[in-house]
C-alpha cells in the first residue's frame, strides 16, 4: 500500500501550523501592510476629518463619532500590523502551503498536481508598491490558496515554477 512506507519517515520539510521550523517559510512583502494601511486610511480618514469638523463647528455630540472612527482606525491598523507578517508560504516537494491568521489560523496545502490554473493579479495600488497577488485555483472554488503581496518578480517566478510543476504532475479531476 502506498501509505505504509511513509508513515514514520521524518520529512525534512515538515508542515507546521505555526512557527518558522520545518518548511522554508517565506513572508510576503512588508509593503503589503503599508498598502493595506493606505486603503484603510483612505476609507476612514476623510470620515474622521469630516466628523472632526462637524464636532468642532456644529454639535458636540459628533465627538462620539470621532472617537469611534479613531478607534476603528487604530484597531484596523493594529490588525494589519499583526496579520500581514502572519501570512507565510512555502513550496514543498508536492505542495504549496499558505498560512495566514494569528487569532484564527488557517493553513492551506494545495498539491501541484491539483492546480487547474494560477492567477497573478495586480491592481493599481499593488502595482505602485511593486506587488502582485498569486491566486491558486483547483477544481474546488473554496479550496484555492491566495498569496497576497508578493513582489512582482517573485510572483512571476512562482507562477512559472507552478506552471512547470503542474505540467509534470498533472492529473485529471
Amino acid at each position, binding site marked *: *500500500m*502506498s*501509505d505504509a512506507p*511513509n*508513515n514514520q519517515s521524518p*520529512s525534512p520539510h*515538515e*508542515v*507546521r*501550523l505555526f512557527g518558522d521550523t520545518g518548511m522554508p517559510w517565506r513572508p510576503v512583502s512588508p509593503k503589503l501592510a503599508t498598502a493595506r494601511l493606505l486603503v484603510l486610511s483612505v476609507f476612514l480618514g476623510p470620515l474622521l476629518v469630516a466628523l472632526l469638523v462637524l464636532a468642532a463647528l456644529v454639535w458636540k455630540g459628533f465627538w462620539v463619532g470621532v472617537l469611534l472612527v479613531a478607534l476603528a482606525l487604530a484597531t484596523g491598523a493594529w490588525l494589519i500590523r499583526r496579520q500581514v507578517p502572519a501570512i507565510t508560504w512555502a513550496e*514543498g516537494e*508536492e*505542495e504549496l502551503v499558505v498560512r495566514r491568521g494569528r*487569532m*484564527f*489560523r*488557517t*493553513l*492551506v*496545502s*494545495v*498539491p501541484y*498536481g*491539483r492546480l487547474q490554473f494560477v492567477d497573478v493579479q495586480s491592481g493599481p495600488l499593488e502595482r505602485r508598491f511593486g506587488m502582485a497577488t498569486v491566486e491558486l485555483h*483547483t*477544481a*474546488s*472554488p*473554496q*479550496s*484555492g*490558496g491566495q498569496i497576497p503581496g508578493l513582489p512582482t518578480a517573485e510572483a512571476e517566478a512562482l507562477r512559472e515554477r507552478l506552471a512547470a510543476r503542474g505540467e509534470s*504532475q498533472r*492529473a*485529471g*479531476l
Partner: protein
Amino acid sequence: MSTAEPTPTPATEPTPTTPPTPQPEWRHLHPLSPLLKGGIAFVAVLAYIVSQQADSFFGAQRDDPTNGHLGWAAVGVLVVLLGIIAGAWVSWRFSRFRVGDALIELRTGVLFRQHRQVRFDRIQAVDLGRPLLARLTGLSEVVVQSAGGKDSHLKLSFLTDAQAQQVREQLMALAGRSDEVAANPAAATSHHASAAGGSEWGGAQLTDEDYADLPAPPPVGQPILAIPNLRILQSILYSGPGLVIALAIPALVVSIALGVPEMVAWLGPMTVAVGSSHLKRLTQECNFELLHQGDRLRIRHGLTDLRTTTVPLHRIQAVEVSQSLPWRLTGWWRIQVNVAGAGAGGDDVTQTVLMPVGNREEALRVLTLVHPGIPRGAALAALEGDGPAEGFVTTSTRARSLDPLSWRRQGYAVLPEGLLTRRGGWYRAAQFVPHARIQSLKVEQGPVQRRRGVATVRLMSTVGPVSPVVAHLDEPEAVRLLAEQVVRSSQARQRA
C-alpha cells in the same frame, strides 16, 4: 454485441494522426422545442384567448376590454401569435448540434450567436430530463454537464425520447472511452470492450436517418435500488420540519373550522413555507431508481419532471452517508455524492443524491458499488461505530469539552484507496474521498482550539453537498494527517 459489429467505425480507434473523417451532419432539435421552452408564455396567451372566447360564448358582454373593437383585438392577438411562432421557427432553424469525434457542439442564436462545445473527456455526467410539458408531447432534453461551473452545461432541448436516449448513450460511450484512453492506455482495450458492450451505438456517428423511428432502448442496467414512494413520503415526514408540518396541518384545519383567524394568520404562512420546500423534495425524489450499468450509475427520479441522470462511477469525487436523528429510529440513511459540475446551480440539487432514503444494507450496497475498496467492517464503523476500532483516529480527550456528544466518533481512517471520515453524535455522517480526488487540504485553528492544542482539518472536494472535515484533531495528529495525505494523494494520482 461488440463481436457482432462488422467493423469499428473510425471514431472508435482514435489515432494520433486523425484521419480526415467526414464531419457528422449538423442536426436540428425538435421543431416543437422553442414553443416548449417558452411554453408557459405560449400557454398563457392561448389560455387568455380561450377564456375570452368562453366569455363571449356564454353571452356575457359585461366588460369587453376592447370596447367593441373585437375584430382589431383578434387581429392583434393573431399577429402576436404569428410573431411568436415565427420567432420560434427562426430560433429553431438556427439551433443545431452535432456529435463529432471528440466533442459535442451546439449552435444557437440568430443575432447573438453562441457556439458551445464540450470535449468528451470533459463530460462529467449526462442528464435526461422530461419536464411536464415535454412529457405530454413525448420529448426529452439532454443536459451535458462539464466541470466548468454553473453555466457550463450544454443543453439539447428538446429531442424526441428515442433520439435523446441515443444521444445520451452515444455520449456516455464516447465520454467514458476517451477519458480512459487519455488516463490509462493499458486499460483502454478492456474498457473499450465494455463500453461497446454497454451500447450498440458506441462511437457510431448517427444521422437523422439512423434515428428514423427507432424505439427507445429498454432501460439497461442492473437495478440496485428502487425506493417505494411511500417510504420517501415517510422519510420526509420523519424529519424535524416534516413533524412540524404533520402537526401544523391538522391544527390549521381545526383553527379554520373553529374560526380562529389569529391562529391561521401565523400558522398558515409557516406551513406553506416549510411545506413547499419539502413538497419540492418529495416531487423530486419520487419514483427513485438507481441502476448500475458497467462503469456508470443511472439515477431516475421525479414525479412531474422525470429525470434520468447518468454518472460515470469514476467521476464521483466524494460520497457521504448521513442519518438525521429521527431516522435513527427507523435505521435510514441518505447517500449524497459530489460530482464535478453537478449541483453547482441551485436547482439541480437532487442530481447529487444517490439514495434519498434506505436502510443500512442498502446504504452499504451503494457504498461498495461506488467505492469497492471500502471493507464492510470499516464502513460499519464509519456509519455507527466509535472509538479507535478499524483504524480510526479520533478526537482526543483534550477536546472533549468542545464536542461533548461526538468526540468519540469524529475522526478519520486511512484506507488503501481513500480517506474515510466520520462525525456527528446525533446527526451521523460518514464521508469517503479517494486519495487522488482530494483537491487540497486546509487546517484551521481558532483561539479556543489553540488553547486545547487541537486543529480542524478540511479535505477540499469539488462543489457539492459533501464536505469532509475532521474536527478537533490533536495538533500533531493534524499535522501528521496533512503531511502523509499529501504523499498519499500524490502517489494515488500518479497511479491513476
